[in-house]
């Protein structure tokens, strides 16, 4: 591990260090939008993409795909190109993008604007979940301000580059966080996933090459271009560069967002920053990636595991969007899986039969297992249904819905003795 370099250094939640950074003048006073100007007036797009690739920036939406690599896939024989920002933030336990957009909006804007230039896009759509109504309203006003400041519009800085940003509100559907479902939703049809390939950088919004990236991912970009790939790599680990905003929720004393370098441990996050477990209770389990996560047994070894893409995997789970839901000894795992399945059954878009039907049947089983009247056979049947759903759906939702179920029954078998 490259390591444990700087702890507690904030690159994204900078409003906690510079309280008024949400004001345009304060942000520009910190050198804000200088990078965007430099990018548009003097940096070739290929160089920008290479810097971002070299920085090791990975997609923060959950999949962890290298951002620079994704941008390089954009088809330069098909125009126009689009940048679509995924601000659908709907994974239970995830609330980081909202804080970034609300509190440090100009850095977010500068990041998406630099990205648009790099991929040759003249239009950016920010797709926000419908519930972020107030955030969208705020962003709309700020987009207006950017036009007034001549940072958006035609012929920026006297070049032939033009850029516009539009917000687009969803209306309550978890599946629209999946990038191809999001694109369908934007096109005015039901938000159901598309068959991939082709991937969006080849065929995306309106059948044009499109980059879809998460808010947090793109909020890093201007800083990387200002300070360089090597600087960015001084945070985090070899395979997981930079910092991450960890959303901490559940049975901890101080839930909230904590930005730490990749490689910080669960113990640091939960006990140092999160103030430990409520009522001094014993910790029981950790969901590392929201409701989509396998449940990790909170052993000492697990607590001392560095939070990075490459290390969380060793615990039979994924880093994902790094929404950490903490479970204490009072949580019955039968209750937990009933909750997660209730969510996935509600959110399954209905396109793939294994997901639609599987979640329906899993819900009737988890209800019975939690509320009484189940036999041990029902637990086996639940395991069987979940296992049979895996690998059979177009998008990850179907797969994710089975994670908590299968891991809980395996790792917390005591709770499932009928």
């Amino acid at each position, binding site marked *: 591990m490259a390591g444990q370099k700087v702890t507690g250094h904030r690159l994204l939640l900078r409003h906690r260090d510079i309280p008024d950074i949400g004001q345009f003048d304060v942000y520009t006073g910190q050198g804000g939008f200088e990078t965007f100007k430099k990018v548009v007036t003097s940096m070739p797009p290929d160089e920008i993409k290479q810097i971002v690739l070299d920085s090791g920036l990975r997609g923060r939406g959950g999949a962890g795909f290298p951002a620079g690599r994704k941008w390089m896939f954009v088809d330069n024989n098909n125009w126009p190109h689009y940048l679509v920002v995924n601000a659908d933030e*709907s994974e239970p336990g*995830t609330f980081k993008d909202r804080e970034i957009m609300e509190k440090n909006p100009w850095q977010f804007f500068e990041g998406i604007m630099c990205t648009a230039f790099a991929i040759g896009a003249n239009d950016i759509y920010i797709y926000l979940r419908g*519930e972020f109504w107030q955030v969208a309203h705020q962003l709309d006003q700020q987009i207006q301000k950017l036009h007034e400041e001549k940072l958006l519009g035609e012929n920026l800085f006297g070049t032939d580059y033009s850029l516009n940003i539009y917000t687009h509100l969803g*209306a309550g559907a978890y599946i629209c966080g999946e990038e191809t479902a999001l694109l369908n939703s934007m096109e005015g049809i*039901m938000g159901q996933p598309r068959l991939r390939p082709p991937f969006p950088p080849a065929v995306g919004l309106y059948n044009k090459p499109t980059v879809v990236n998460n808010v947090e991912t793109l909020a890093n970009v201007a800083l990387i271009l200002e300070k360089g790939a090597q600087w960015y790599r001084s945070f985090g680990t070899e395979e997981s560069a930079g910092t991450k905003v960890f959303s901490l929720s559940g049975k901890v004393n101080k839930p909230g967002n904590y930005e730490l370098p990749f490689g910080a441990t669960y113990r640091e996050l939960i006990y140092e920053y999160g103030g430990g477990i409520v009522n001094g209770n014993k910790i029981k389990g950790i969901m590392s990636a929201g409701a989509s996560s396998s449940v990790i047994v909170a052993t000492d070894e697990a607590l001392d595991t560095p939070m990075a893409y490459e290390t969380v995997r060793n615990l039979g789970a994924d880093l994902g969007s790094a929404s950490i839901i903490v479970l204490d000894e009072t949580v019955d795992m039968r209750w937990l899986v009933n909750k997660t399945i209730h*969510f996935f059954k509600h959110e399954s878009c209905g396109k793939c039969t294994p997901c639609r039907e599987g979640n329906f049947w899993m819900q009737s089983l988890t209800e019975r297992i939690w509320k009484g009247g189940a036999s041990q056979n029902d637990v086996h049947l639940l395991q069987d249904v979940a296992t049979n759903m895996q690998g059979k759906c177009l998008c990850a939702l179907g797969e994710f819905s089975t994670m908590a179920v299968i891991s809980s029954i395996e790792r917390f078998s005591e709770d499932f003795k009928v």
Partner: protein
Amino acid sequence: MNAFQQKYATEIEAILSKYPADRKRSAVMPLLYIAQREGGYVTKKEMSEIAEILDITPTEVASIIGFYTLYHEKPGGKYRIQVCNDLPCALRGADEFLEKLCENVGIQVGETTEDGLVTIEGVMCLAACDKAPMFQVQTGEGIAYHEDQTLESTMALIESWKQQEKED
């Protein structure tokens, strides 16, 4: 030009200008929000009008309303209190909060008060897990978050709506 289009002409034009001219179907979601502004739900007539503006069928518009949770085909309370009782909020007492709130208001989850003022619903994660119990209030005008709530603060909020009704 139909009645809906006439009524909101400037706004509709601004929305359509966000999307390529041959992709105006993208405007279906924002137009549905406009349709909900007055009554809090979309009428059959508005579905047809929106369909006409966007060159799609009323059935296609209906499919969008049915797919998403924030569009409504039937009237509900003027204020829809949508309490998140998904996993992270439930770990911080959201189920109990929702139950007590319903008890105090005198309705069940999903129901509307007799005066038509309040509907209470249980909803999925609203991305405010560190500030549970929390809910959003959906009205025709939009959506507002209310975080770190107690039964008392929520009842006071409902009371303020009642007062406002009297004044109006």
